């Protein structure tokens, strides 16, 4: 299920798009004890020059946006995750083992150019 972006004005600009995967929709709630699902957020949107001067962008993005303004053949800077967090999964396998496993860099918390 997609969670609508907070304000529509920057809809096309680079930002985090929230997407929640409910394990019940996959029928996985029968073997995954916790959590109930996980945030499959993703980054998408334009990185115009004006945005690259904001906090969440890197110097490289500023330079690339500048070069794109001079020569549109040079692609715009790209929208990527700038902060990620791990998830833990508690589940049962086919041998009746209860397993707790940690996966790092699984959830996108913030995006930037």
């Amino acid at each position, binding site marked *: 299920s997609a969670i609508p972006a907070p304000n529509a004005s920057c809809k096309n600009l680079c930002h985090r798009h929230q997407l929640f995967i409910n394990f019940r929709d996959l029928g996985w709630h029968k073997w995954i004890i*916790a959590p109930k699902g996980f945030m499959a957020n993703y980054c998408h949107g334009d990185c115009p020059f004006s945005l690259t001067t904001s906090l969440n962008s890197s110097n490289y993005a500023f330079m690339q946006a500048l070069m794109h303004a001079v020569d549109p053949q040079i692609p715009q800077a790209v929208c990527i995750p700038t902060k990620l967090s791990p998830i833990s999964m508690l589940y049962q396998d086919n041998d009746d083992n209860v397993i707790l496993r940690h996966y790092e860099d699984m959830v996108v*918390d913030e995006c930037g150019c």
Partner: protein
Amino acid sequence: ALGQTFQFQENVFLQFLGLDKVPSPQKFQPVPYILKKIFQDREAAATTGGSQDLCSIKNLGVRGNVLRLLPDQGFYLYSKDLPQASCLQKLLYFNLAAIRDKEQLTMAQLGLDLGSNTYYNLGPELELALSLVQEPRVWGQSISTPGKPFALQSVPWPQGVLRFNLLDVAKDWNNNPQKNLGLFLEILVKGDRDFGVNFQLEDTCARLRHSLHASLLVVTLNPEQCHPSSRKRR
């Protein structure tokens, strides 16, 4: 086609989770408090954005990123010629096949849950003898302890969960699966204590057989997902 595509993605995601197919457990195992606690602590840390070392299990004081609770797949030994004070004899067996070759074992803790921790119906003093099964045998009859017990413990019963460190044993089993013939557990009743009532040995032991629950908590470190030492990522 869409369904087919989705099916493909599901398999890819399962492999990412380290699974070869969707588990379909027949009965749910009880989740021990420690696993719930570690899970909740991780969730809280991820929510607050605090940095966390995914390759250390603070609550247990070991390095590792996969915890497995293996249920006991052994069975009780019944025989009419059990030694007088012997309350029960049980083979304990844990299937380590779920542990992948590249994973390093950092903890293996046997948990023996003898039943609720209450002082109202204090049972007799118990003595537990735990020994390695060294060679295959026919389990039709009770046996005297197969090897020298490597763990002996005397406890008032009911006692709650007793824990034994089996890391070296589990490493040996993991490196030489043919050696994994299980453990032999014998629980003896030390009848020298008088409770003022004449407790029936058999129904005491029947209660114990009913309440005994064994499991092996195994922690492993996957070097592909965890840096060898606790080197922080730049």
